[in-house]
C-alpha cells in the first residue's frame, strides 16, 4: 500500500459515479442473499457446522494436507508446494515451459491475483487470458478487482461498452446492453477455449479424503478451463481444504446462497487428479503458503483463514458500500480484507486497514462460517498499536492521562473541573483528530458529586 486507507477512502468517496455504481449493485446483491438464506430453515445450523468444520480443518491441517497430496498423486496429479508467491509463480511457469505454452487461459482466482501470477508469467513471455467476464473487463482496462465476487462492480455498462469498443470488439457495433457485452466476451474467448493448451485455476475447496478439487462458477468459463486444455494447474491456499467429501453438503449450500444469492451457482465442478479420456491429460496442484502460516500463528486472528470468499461481508459493510474495494489497497477488500491483508502481508504493510471499520457487526451476522470479524479487527488494532507504533502519540498520552485521572477521587474531581473550563475550541486543539469525527459531550454545569455534597450539607 502506497497510501493508507483514510487517504484512499477520501478519494473514493469523492467519486460520485463509483458511489452510485456501488450503492446500486450492493443493494441488489444484499436483497438476493437475504431471499436465498430465508429459504433455508436450517441456516444457523449450517453456519454452526461450517464454522466447526473449518476450525477442525485448521487444527488438523498438517495431516490433511499430506492426505490431499497422497490422494491427488494417486489419481495421477502432481503436487507442488510453494512457501511464497515467487515459488508458486515459478511452479506454474515451469509447467508452461515444459509444454511450450506461450498462452494460458485463467479461471477467476484471487490466490493468483495475490501472487501476481499474470505479471510473473508475462515476464517469462507467457500471456495469461482472464476468462471470467469481470476479470476480463479489469484486465482489458488495466484495472484491478474491487470486489471478491463481482470484481468489476465499480464499472457501469457504458464504461464497459466504451472499453470493449476500443479492445475486443473494435469496429463492431455495440450497445451497452449487458447481453451484447457478454456476447462480445463469448466471441472473443471462444477461440481461446478451443485452442489454448494450458489453463490455470484457483480452488474453492479441496477434499483431503478423496483428492477432489472444486470450482464454483456461473459463466462456464471455469468448466472450459478445467476441461478443454491439455494441462491444468490449480493454485490453492493451504486453507482451502475440507476434510471429508461429506463436508461439501454444508459448503455447497452456504457458498452460493451467501455469494450470488442463488440456491446453487450454475456450475460446480469437481475433479480428482486426471480422468483418462475426460479432460486434461495433466493436472498440477500448487499448494500455497505465502503468509498463511503467519495468520495461523495468531490464535484469534487465524479464523480469517476460514473465509470461503463469498463476499457477503462486503455487501453489508457501511464502509465498503461507500468507498468500494480499491481503497483497501489489496486483492482482498472489505471487512474480510481488513483482517486478512494485514495478517497475510504483515501489520507494517497495512497498518490502517484494521481501523477501516465502524465495528457495527453486520459482517459477522452474514458470514456463513461465522468469522468474528469485529473481534479480530479490535485484536489487530491492539497489535498495530503495540507492534508498529514506537512513537508517542497524542491519543496515547491522552489515554494515559485519563487512566491516571480515574485512579484517585481527588484527581478525578479536578479533571471534571478542568473539563468544564477546557471544553470548546481548546479541546479540539488538544484532542486533534479524535474530535474530527466525534462530538465531545458537553459537561453538565454541576457534577453529580458536588450536587450530592450540597444536598447532604
Amino acid at each position, binding site marked *: 500500500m502506497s497510501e493508507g486507507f483514510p487517504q484512499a477512502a477520501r478519494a473514493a468517496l469523492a467519486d460520485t459515479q463509483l458511489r452510485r455504481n456501488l450503492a446500486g449493485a450492493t443493494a441488489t446483491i444484499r436483497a438476493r442473499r437475504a431471499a436465498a438464506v430465508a429459504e433455508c430453515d436450517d441456516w444457523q445450523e449450517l453456519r454452526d457446522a461450517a464454522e466447526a468444520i473449518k476450525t477442525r480443518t485448521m487444527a488438523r491441517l498438517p495431516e490433511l494436507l499430506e492426505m490431499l497430496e497422497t490422494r491427488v498423486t494417486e489419481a495421477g496429479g502432481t503436487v507442488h508446494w*510453494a512457501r511464497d508467491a515467487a515459488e508458486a509463480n515459478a511452479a506454474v511457469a515451469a509447467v508452461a515451459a515444459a509444454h511450450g505454452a506461450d498462452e494460458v487461459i485463467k479461471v477467476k482466482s484471487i490466490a493468483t491475483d495475490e501472487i501476481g501470477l499474470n505479471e510473473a508469467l508475462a515476464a517469462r513471455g507467457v500471456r495469461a487470458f482472464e476468462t471470467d467476464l469481470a476479470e476480463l473487463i479489469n484486465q482489458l482496462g488495466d484495472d484491478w478487482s474491487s470486489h471478491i465476487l463481482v470484481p468489476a462492480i465499480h464499472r457501469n455498462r457504458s464504461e464497459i461498452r466504451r472499453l470493449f469498443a476500443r479492445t475486443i470488439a473494435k469496429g463492431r457495433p455495440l450497445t451497452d446492453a449487458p447481453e451484447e457485452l457478454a456476447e462480445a466476451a463469448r466471441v472473443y474467448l471462444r477461440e481461446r477455449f478451443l485452442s489454448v493448451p494450458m489453463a490455470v485455476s484457483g480452488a474453492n475447496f479441496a477434499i483431503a479424503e478423496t483428492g477432489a478439487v472444486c470450482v464454483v462458477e456461473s*459463466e462456464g468459463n471455469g468448466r472450459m478451463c478445467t476441461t478443454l486444455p491439455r494441462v491444468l494447474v490449480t493454485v490453492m491456499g493451504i486453507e482451502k481444504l475440507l476434510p471429508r467429501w461429506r463436508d461439501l453438503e454444508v459448503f455447497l449450500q452456504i457458498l452460493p446462497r451467501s455469494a450470488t444469492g442463488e440456491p446453487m451457482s450454475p456450475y460446480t465442478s469437481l475433479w480428482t487428479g486426471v480422468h483418462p479420456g475426460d479432460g486434461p491429460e495433466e493436472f498440477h496442484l500448487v499448494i500455497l503458503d505465502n503468509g498463511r502460516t503467519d495468520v495461523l500463528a495468531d490464535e484469534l486472528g487465524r479464523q480469517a483463514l476460514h473465509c470461503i470468499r463469498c463476499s457477503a461481508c462486503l455487501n453489508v459493510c457501511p464502509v465498503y458500500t461507500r468507498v468500494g474495494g480499491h481503497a483497501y489497497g489489496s486483492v482482498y477488500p472489505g471487512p474480510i480484507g481488513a483482517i486478512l491483508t494485514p495478517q497475510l502481508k504483515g501489520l507494517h504493510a497495512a497498518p490502517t486497514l484494521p481501523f477501516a471499520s465502524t465495528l457495527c457487526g453486520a459482517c459477522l451476522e452474514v458470514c456463513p462460517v461465522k468469522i468474528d470479524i469485529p473481534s479480530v479487527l479490535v485484536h489487530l488494532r491492539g497489535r498495530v498499536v503495540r507492534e508498529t507504533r514506537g512513537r508517542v502519540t497524542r491519543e496515547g498520552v491522552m489515554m494515559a492521562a485519563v487512566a491516571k485521572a480515574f485512579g484517585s477521587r481527588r484527581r478525578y474531581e479536578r479533571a471534571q473541573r478542568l473539563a468544564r473550563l477546557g471544553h470548546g475550541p481548546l479541546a479540539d486543539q488538544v484532542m486533534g483528530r479524535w474530535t474530527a469525527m466525534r462530538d465531545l459531550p458537553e459537561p453538565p454545569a454541576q457534577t453529580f458529586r458536588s450536587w450530592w455534597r450540597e444536598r447532604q450539607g
Partner: protein
Amino acid sequence: MSARDDVLARVRRALGPSPSAPEVPRGYHQAGASRDGDAVARFCERAAEYTATVTRCGDDALAAVLGARARAHGVTRLACPAATAWAVDGAETVPDDPPLDPRTLDSIGAVVTGSALAIADTGTVVLDGGPASGRRALSLVPDVHLCVVRAATVVWSVPDAIAALAADGARGRPVTFISGPSATSDIELQRVEGVHGPRTLEIVVVDEAP
C-alpha cells in the same frame, strides 16, 4: 529443507502443541431426512426458475419429446455420449465414439446427455462422467444441452446428492452440478443468460413405466 517440509513445519509451529478441534455439530437437515411432497414436481419447478425449460414425459414418449425440444431450437444433429444413445425423433445423433474434438462439438452445436441424479431443492442436475452423462466436454461446448433426468434419480436436498454420489462411487469421477444455463451478473449485477457454457438448457424428466 524442501518447500513441502518447510510449509508443513511452519503449519505445525503455528498451531502449537494442541490446537482445539471441536466436534462438528450437524444439526442441519442431513441426507435421508424425510420430507412431505413430491420431489420430482419440486425439481421441475425449481429448475424452471433458472429459465431452464423443463418437460416431463413417460418413457414411451421420450424420443418424441426430445425431437420436439430439438426442433424448438432448430437442432437437427446432436452429439451424445458414446455409451448411451438416445433416439431423438427427426434428428440425427452423433455418438462420442471416437471422442469428438471440441471444434466438432462446437460446430454440431447441440448435445443430448443423461445425468446421474438431480436435486429438487435447488433445481440442479448432476453429471458424473458415467455412461449416461458422458465426458465433460460433451455437455459444455455445444450451445444447446438436452438433459434427460430419470424421475427415480431425483433426490430432495444437497446432502442427499452428496451422499448418493459417494454411494455410487462417483467421488473419484469428474462431477458437474448444473443449475440452469450459463449466466453472468458481472455487469451491474444484471443477470445475463448464456456466456460460455450452453445458452440453452432443456431438461426432460422421464417417469419410468411402473
